[in-house]
C-alpha cells in the first residue's frame, strides 16, 4: 500500500502517513469512504473547513491490470447532504498510484476566499504550491492549456481541475480529469464536488509521474497470467468486446426508447420520436464522416475503448462522446434532436465544470416551466452560460434541477436526495427505481445498474415493468459496484463479470497476486458490504431517514406513456434493500 498524503489548505502544510493497518484492504471508494467517515462530522457544512476532499486510486491502478485506473473522489456532498463518491476515468489514478499515493486528502480552507492554488505533485513525491489567483474564472480547457505551458516538454502528467462553476460553489459542479491526450474531458460529475474543491481554494492539481514504472506485485508471474485471463474475458463478451467499442455508451438511446424507458421532455414520456437522430449509431456515422476518432480508452490499460471524440463539420475536436447520459439529458429530456447542439451543450458544461446529467435535467425542468421551449437548444446554451454572471436564474440553474425547479414552481421534479435522476425512467425500469431511491448517493444509475438485467439481458432477465425481483437485483448490484469502485476497476467490466464466472475469478486472482494477501469471491463481496455500511451510517449521522429512500410521490401516480405505468415497488421493499447493514456494522466493530 502507498501513503496517505494530507494537505491542509489553511497553512499549506503537508503530512504523510502510511495507510492505517485497519484500512489495508481499502482503496478507491472504500478508502475515500473510510477517511470521510472517520474525519468528517456527518452534520458538518459541506462547504466549510471540516469537510475533506479525498482522491483515491484503486489498488490495481498503476499496474497493467486492464481497466484498473478509475479515480474515486469523496467528500460530504453539498448537493445531497450525504456522503458522496464521484468516480472518473482519465489518467490521474495511474499517476497517483505510481508515485505511491493511496489517498490525497485536501482538508481545511484558505483564509482568503479569493485565493486560488495549483498543487503540483512531482514524480519524486514532492508537493509544490503555486498561487494562481489570475486563473480565477478560467474554464477547464483554457486551464489545461495554461498548465501545459508550465510543464517541461517531455513531461508525463495528468490534471485534476476545477472550472468556474466549482469556484462559485455551485451544487451541480464536478471535477475534470485529463485523458491520455491531456483533454480535461473525463469527469467526476455527480454531487457538487467541484464546490468542495472551490471552497478549499484549489483550482488545479497536477500529477507528474514521468520516469516512474508500474507498481510492483507480490507475485508478478501470477499477476500477468491473471490479467491475461481478465483481458480475454472482457474482450470475449459481446457487450464489452463489441457493442461498447463500436458505438460507445450512446448505443443505449434507441434501446431505452424502444423499451419505453427513455425519459423525454422532463420525464413526461418514455419514448422520444427523434431518439435515432441522437443515438450511438448516428453518432458513429457522423464522426466517421467527419474523420474523427470513434474508439479510444479514457485511460491507458483500457481494453474496452468505448470513448470517442465528437468533432465539428470541419473535423475539429469539440468534446468527448457525448456519452449516453449527456445525449439523453441535453437531448431527449430537453426535446433536442441534433447531436451538434448536444455536443455544444456538453462542451460548455465540461468547460464550466458542471455535471451534464444534472444540467440537462435542470434545463428540462426550466423548459417544463415554460421559461424556455422544449427543443430550444440555443436558449438552453445561453442560459447555461449565463450562470457565469453569478446571479439570477442562470446561477440558480447551476445548483441543480431541484433548486431551479422549486423557484420556477415546477411540479414534476425528478430528484432523490436532491440529486437529479439519470437517463432511465424508474416507472418503466423499476429496478433502477429501487437503486435511485435507496442508494446513499442520491438518484444515481451507476450505483446499482439494474439496466443490465432489466433491459439488456446481462446477468439474467428481470422484467422492468414489474416490481418483482427488483430489490434483490438492485441490492446485489449495489454491493458489487461498491466493490468494483473500491478496486479502481471500470464499471463496464461488470458486463463480463455478470455472465462469465472466470472473469470474476480473474479479479480476485489479480488482487491476490498483486497484494500478496488472499482475496476470494467472499472477500470481494464483503468489501462491497463494508463500503455501503460506512455510507449508510454516515448518512444516518447526517440526518437521513427512510423518508429519504423514496422516489418523488408523483412517480407513483403520473403514468408514463407508452406503457402507462407508475412505480409500484413498495416502501417496505425499499426499506429491505440495506438489511445487511446491522450485521456488517457489527462485524466491522462500528456498532
Amino acid at each position, binding site marked *: 500500500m502507498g501513503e496517505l498524503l494530507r494537505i491542509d489548505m489553511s497553512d499549506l502544510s503537508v503530512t504523510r502517513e502510511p495507510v492505517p493497518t485497519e484500512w489495508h484492504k481499502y482503496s478507491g471508494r472504500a478508502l475515500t469512504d473510510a477517511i470521510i467517515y472517520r474525519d468528517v462530522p456527518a452534520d458538518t457544512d459541506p462547504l466549510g473547513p471540516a469537510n475533506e476532499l479525498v482522491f483515491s486510486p484503486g489498488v490495481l491502478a498503476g499496474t497493467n491490470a486492464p481497466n484498473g485506473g478509475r479515480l474515486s473522489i469523496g467528500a460530504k456532498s453539498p448537493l445531497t447532504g450525504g456522503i458522496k463518491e464521484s468516480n472518473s476515468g482519465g489518467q490521474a489514478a495511474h499517476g497517483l498510484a505510481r508515485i505511491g499515493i493511496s489517498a490525497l486528502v485536501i482538508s481545511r480552507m484558505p483564509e482568503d476566499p479569493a485565493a486560488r492554488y495549483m498543487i503540483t505533485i512531482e514524480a519524486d513525491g514532492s508537493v509544490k504550491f503555486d498561487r494562481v489567483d489570475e486563473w480565477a474564472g478560467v474554464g477547464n480547457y483554457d486551464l489545461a492549456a495554461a498548465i501545459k505551458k508550465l510543464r517541461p516538454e517531455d513531461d508525463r502528467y495528468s490534471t485534476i481541475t476545477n472550472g468556474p462553476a466549482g469556484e462559485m460553489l455551485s451544487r451541480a459542479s464536478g471535477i475534470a480529469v485529463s485523458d491520455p491526450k491531456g483533454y480535461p474531458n473525463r469527469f467526476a460529475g455527480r454531487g457538487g464536488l467541484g464546490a468542495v474543491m472551490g471552497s478549499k481554494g484549489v483550482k488545479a492539481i497536477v500529477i507528474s509521474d514521468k520516469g516512474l514504472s508500474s507498481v510492483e506485485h507480490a507475485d508478478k508471474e501470477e499477476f500477468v497470467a491473471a490479467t491475461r485471463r481478465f483481458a480475454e474475458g472482457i474482450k470475449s463478451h459481446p457487450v*464489452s468486446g463489441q*457493442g461498447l467499442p463500436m458505438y460507445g455508451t450512446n*448505443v443505449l438511446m*434507441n434501446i431505452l426508447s424502444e423499451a*419505453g424507458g427513455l425519459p423525454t421532455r422532463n420525464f413526461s414520456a418514455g419514448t422520444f420520436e427523434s431518439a*435515432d437522430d441522437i443515438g450511438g449509431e448516428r453518432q458513429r456515422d457522423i464522426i466517421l464522416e467527419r474523420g474523427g476518432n470513434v474508439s479510444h480508452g479514457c485511460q491507458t490499460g483500457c481494453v474496452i475503448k468505448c470513448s470517442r471524440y465528437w468533432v465539428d463539420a470541419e473535423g475539429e475536436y469539440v468534446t468527448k462522446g457525448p456519452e449516453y447520459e449527456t445525449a439523453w439529458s441535453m437531448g431527449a429530456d430537453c426535446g433536442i434532436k441534433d447531436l451538434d447542439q448536444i455536443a455544444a451543450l456538453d462542451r460548455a458544461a465540461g468547460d464550466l465544470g458542471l455535471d451534464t446529467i444534472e444540467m440537462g435535467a435542470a434545463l428540462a425542468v426550466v423548459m417544463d416551466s415554460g421559461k424556455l421551449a422544449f427543443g430550444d437548444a440555443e436558449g438552453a446554451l445561453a442560459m447555461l452560460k449565463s450562470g457565469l454572471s453569478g446571479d439570477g436564474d442562470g446561477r440558480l440553474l447551476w445548483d441543480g434541477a431541484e433548486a431551479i425547479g422549486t423557484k420556477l414552481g415546477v411540479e414534476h421534479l425528478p430528484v432523490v436526495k436532491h440529486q437529479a435522476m439519470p437517463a432511465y425512467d424508474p416507472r418503466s425500469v423499476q429496478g433502477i427505481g429501487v437503486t435511485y431511491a435507496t442508494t446513499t448517493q442520491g438518484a444515481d444509475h451507476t450505483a446499482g445498474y439494474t439496466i443490465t438485467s432489466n433491459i*439488456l439481458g446481462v446477468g439474467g432477465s428481470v422484467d*422492468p415493468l414489474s416490481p418483482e425481483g427488483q430489490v434483490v437485483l438492485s441490492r446485489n448490484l449495489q454491493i458489487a459496484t461498491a466493490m468494483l469502485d473500491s478496486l479502481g476497476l471500470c464499471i463496464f467490466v461488470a*458486463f463480463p463479470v455478470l455472465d462469465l464466472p472466470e472473469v470474476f475469478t480473474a479479479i480476485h486472482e489479480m488482487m491476490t497476486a498483486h497484494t500478496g494477501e488472499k482475496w476470494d469471491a467472499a472477500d470481494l463481496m464483503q468489501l462491497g458490504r463494508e463500503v455501503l455500511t460506512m455510507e449508510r451510517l454516515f448518512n444516518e449521522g447526517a440526518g437521513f431517514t427512510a423518508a429519504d429512500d423514496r422516489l418523488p410521490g408523483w412517480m407513483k401516480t403520473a403514468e408514463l406513456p407508452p406503457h402507462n405505468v407508475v412505480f409500484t415497488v413498495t416502501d417496505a421493499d425499499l426499506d429491505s434493500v440495506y438489511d445487511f447493514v446491522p450485521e456488517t456494522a457489527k462485524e466491522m466493530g462500528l456498532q
Partner: protein
Amino acid sequence: MKVTVALFAYLSAFQPDGLGGRAPRTFDLAEGTAIAEVIASLGLPDQPRIVFVNGRHAEETVALSEADRLAIFPPVAGG
C-alpha cells in the same frame, strides 16, 4: 398479417431491402409467425439478442400478431 420490423446497431445491415438504417420496415407474414422464424429468415448472426415486441421483452418462441412492432438489438450497453 402486417408487422413492422426495426433492426438496430450493426443488425440494421440485415434488413432485406439492403438499405440498412434503423427505420422500421413492413413485413407481410403468415398468421402466427414466430419471432424465431423472422430472425431465421433475416439470417441474423448467432449471438445473444435483445428482442422487443411493442416495447416489451419477448421470447423468440412468441407468435407475432397483426400490427405488432418487432425491434431487435445486438448485445449493447452503456451507462
